[in-house]
Structures are given as structure tokens and as C-alpha cells.
């Protein structure tokens, strides 16, 4: 049994009498401990798909099973990192993380929660900023706190919706490497199952075991591609190899052939 099974998921929206299909018959599965990126141009329904996984949206048809059980609303088995910095502005970094822990671990005392929060803030390199409010932190730092919160909640599954989409290129690279490091761990412990939505091909290759490419209008799965690189991965070494470039070009070709066929071919200059 797969950890997550997505079966014939269809989502229709009605907006001002216009009905449109965000997702149509989307099916794929994710194994336990697998890092899966969902990639596609905007409007391909990747964020809609994730919102159903999160449990804040419901499908028109089809279902998602986690450990064989259909999803009913949000759950303590899933931690979420959004693109928008989803911290509560009235809580300090530390309180934000501790608040997340409290929701999944009701038994932990306040002191224990704060201790775990400090531990995870240290892991994301923010030990000196734990008493700052989100408005006093940069976007990259806020996202570090959000990641620390999601990891500290210690859920089986981590859902990430373009978490680095609003972060400048340099910090994005740093955060990708941080996430990779934290997820891979020392290689001995069990890894979390991650569903990571992005539109950045390099990001998807670096992080994932499998890439699910989606196409728009309506949102459908175009292809599922295994990423053939060993872990632990090192970006600097990886990007210099020929295999990496070949693989990347293959993905790019798929990505753009889809776009070209959708908008009608020759006139499109890429």
C-alpha cells in the first residue's frame, strides 16, 4: 500500500457562472518516505491538488487515501508550509513553532514545547531570532520559521506549496539545501513523505525522488519521472555532471512541448 494514493481526482470551480475544471482525473501515488515534486506552469492545478491534500478544499469527484484511509479535512498527520509566510504575526518565532507543536502534541508541557521549538529554530539557524516577531524577520527567515514549525510538529507527511516561490534567488538556494539536509538527515532515521509543489525545474530535480509533471486546462498529470541521482545530493557537484544536464534538458523539453502544444505551436517564441 502506498502512503498517499490519489485516485481520479477531479475539481470543478464555478466562478461568475463560468465553470472550469482545475483538475481532471488526476491519479498517482506516493510511497512512504518519498520526496515527490509536483511541477507545472501556473493554472495546472498543482496548488489545488495540494489544498485537497491539506484538507482545506474538497474534490468534486475522486478521493485521496492516506494509509488507505480517505482524507476528511485537515489532520495531525500532515504538516504544511505555504508560499505566503503563514506565521501568526502576533506570536514570536518561538511561540509560532510552539503553537504548532501544541496542536499535535497536547500532552507536552509548555516548557517541553518551548524546548522543542528552540531545538528546531536552531536547526534552521535562527537561534538568535527566536523572540522576534514575524514583522521583524525577512521573508527568508519567516519561511525558515515555517519550516521549523512544520518539522517540529513531526508529522508523517510534509506538504509544501511553493515554499520558496517568494524568496530571492540566493536565499532560495540556501533554503533548498537546508531542507534537503534536514529531510535526508544522517541517513539512518525514517524520512518524511514530502509533497512539494514548485514551478522551478532545478529545485524539483535537486530535491525529489520523483517528479510529477502536470499540464493545464484542465489540470492533468502529463508524466511521472523518477529522478535518477543518488543521495545525499550535493548541488555544486550535481549540476556539473553531464547526467544532470541531460536529465534537465529532457524535463525542459517535456515542460515546453506541453506549453507549445497547448497554445498552438509555431508562433510561440521561447
Amino acid at each position: 500500500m502506498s502512503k498517499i494514493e490519489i485516485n481520479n481526482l477531479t475539481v470543478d470551480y464555478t466562478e461568475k457562472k463560468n465553470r472550469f475544471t482545475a483538475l481532471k482525473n488526476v491519479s498517482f501515488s506516493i510511497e512512504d518516505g518519498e520526496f515527490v515534486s509536483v511541477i507545472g506552469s501556473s493554472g495546472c492545478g498543482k496548488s489545488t491538488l495540494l489544498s485537497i491534500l491539506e484538507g482545506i478544499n474538497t474534490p468534486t469527484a475522486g478521493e485521496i487515501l492516506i494509509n488507505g484511509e480517505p482524507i476528511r479535512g485537515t489532520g495531525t498527520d500532515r504538516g504544511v508550509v505555504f508560499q505566503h509566510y503563514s506565521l501568526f504575526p502576533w506570536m514570536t518565532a518561538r511561540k509560532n513553532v510552539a503553537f504548532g507543536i501544541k496542536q499535535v502534541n497536547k500532552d507536552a508541557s509548555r516548557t517541553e514545547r518551548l524546548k522543542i521549538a528552540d531545538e528546531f529554530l536552531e536547526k534552521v539557524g535562527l537561534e538568535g531570532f527566536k523572540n522576534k516577531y514575524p514583522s521583524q524577520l525577512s521573508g527568508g527567515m519567516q519561511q525558515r520559521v515555517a519550516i521549523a514549525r512544520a518539522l517540529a510538529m513531526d508529522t508523517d507527511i510534509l506538504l509544501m506549496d511553493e515554499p520558496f516561490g517568494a524568496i530571492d534567488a540566493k536565499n532560495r538556494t540556501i533554503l533548498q539545501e537546508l531542507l534537503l539536509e534536514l529531510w535526508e538527515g544522517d541517513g539512518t532515521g525514517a524520512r518524511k513523505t514530502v509533497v512539494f509543489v514548485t514551478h522551478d525545474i532545478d529545485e524539483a530535480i535537486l530535491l525529489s525522488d520523483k517528479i510529477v509533471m502536470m499540464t493545464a486546462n484542465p489540470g492533468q498529470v502529463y508524466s511521472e519521472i523518477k529522478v535518477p541521482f543518488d543521495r545525499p545530493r550535493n548541488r555544486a557537484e550535481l549540476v556539473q555532471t553531464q547526467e544532470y544536464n541531460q536529465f534537465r534538458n529532457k524535463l525542459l523539453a517535456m515542460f515546453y512541448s506541453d506549453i507549445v502544444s497547448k497554445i498552438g505551436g509555431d508562433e510561440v517564441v521561447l
Partner: protein
Amino acid sequence: MTFKKRYLRLVHLLFIVLLLIQLLPDKLSGDTYAQYVVWFAVGVEILTLIVSSFIKKPIGLTLFVDIVSFIYGLLIAWTLATAKFNLLKPALFPPPGRVFWQLIGDYEKIITNIFSSVGIILQGYLLAAAAAIILGLLLGSSERLGNVATYISKFLGAIPPIVYIPYGIALLPTFRSVSVFVIFLATFWPVLAGTMSGVMNVDKKTIDSAKVLNVGKITMLFSVILPASLEMIGAQSGLGYYIKNYSDLGDYTRTLVGLIVIGIVIVVISFVFNKIQKYLLRWKH
């Protein structure tokens, strides 16, 4: 701050002018109690010098001396218009010395009044704020109830609280409870409207962030929606509004003494509320 910035200010010149004009002959008949004005001014001046020596922020000092300058300016104009040139009807506009004399003569009564008024205000306000915030959170969570309740609270809030006084007197046992009741109503509707509009305008992203953390209903209401709408509750409703109302209601003696005392009480209360509000919203830049 330099010595010049600290001590060489217009306010001290105004102080000297205020003292000098007391030396002009009175045109108004009867005792004008000029010595009370002098004592008051000397007291204020000493306070100003103390504040000038200890305050750290230049902006704070400027604000303080500007307020003192305004008080001196007002006293100069008031003294000249009444005691010295007798331009106004003395029955309506007594000279400042007489007001200070009365203030000192009545001080016990005034202090008792301040305490009982502040007690009434706090009791009425806190009861209303607690009730309105809880009700507002509950009603605002439902779009349908929130919408209808917003209109109703705006309608009822538009009724001047003084209108309720006869009902209060008829229904409640003591005048004190009537006062609390009127303050309660004056505060309740605007705080309710502010809370509901705050709750209904909380960013959907904030709600989603909380939902994916699996927060329970009560936590959502009090730990997420309440702080997220706190700014709206403070800004749109209560504090300023109720202070204004208090001055409507509190003007019972219709004397300048009463007005000055009430003015000071209002300034102090609004200062305290400002500090509380700043503390609660400290996470905003």
C-alpha cells in the same frame, strides 16, 4: 540633548509673561485670586523643569513643552479677557484664579468624584468590552449572523446613550447602576460592530494557516481570530468613542472646574489605553 535644546524654550518665556500680567490692575470687581494662578503656574513650571532635565527623547520633551505652552497661552488669554480687561460676562467666564480657588476648596469632593467616575467607567466599559468581544467573535464566525448583526449593532449604536437614561432610572435600583448601564450601552454596540467586522475581515490565509495546524474551535476563536482582529476592535470601536461619551455624560456640574477635571481624567485614561493598545499590538512593526 544640548543645554540649549533642553532649557532654552519658548515655554519659559510664556511662564514669565503669565506671571507679569498678574501685576496689571484688575478691571473686574471682587477678588480674582491671582495668587492661585501664580501658584499653579509655578507648580507647572517646576514640573516642566524636572521633566526637561530627565526626559531622554527630544520628541517627548517637545510634546510636553508644547502642551505646557498651550496651557500657559490659554491662562494668559483667559486672565487678560476676564480679570484684567473684563471683556466677557463674569457669570459665564470666571477668571482663572477663582476657578483654581474653587478647585482647591472642593478638592475632597472632586477626588471622591474622580474615583467613583473612573470606577463607573471601568466597570461599564470592561463589562461591555468582554460581552461584546465574546458575542462578536461568535456572531462574526457565521457570515449570515455576522451580516445581520452588523446592521443591527450599527442601528442601535447610532442611538445616543443619553436616551437610555430614563429607562435605566425606571428599571435599575441605583443611580450608580444606571451610570454603569449607560456606559455599558455606549460601549457595547461599537465594540460589537468592531469585533464582528474584525472577525469577518481576517485574512483567509491566516485562517488556512491555522486550519492546517489542526486547531480546535476554541483555539481558533481566541488564539487566532481574536488577535488577528484585535486592531480592528481597538481602532473601529470602543476607546475613543467611549471617552467622548463620558464627556457628554460627565458634564454634570457644568462648571469650568468640572470641565478641567474631566479633561485631565480623559487625557489620563486615553493615555493609559493608548499604552495598552500599543502593548497588545506590539507585533506590528
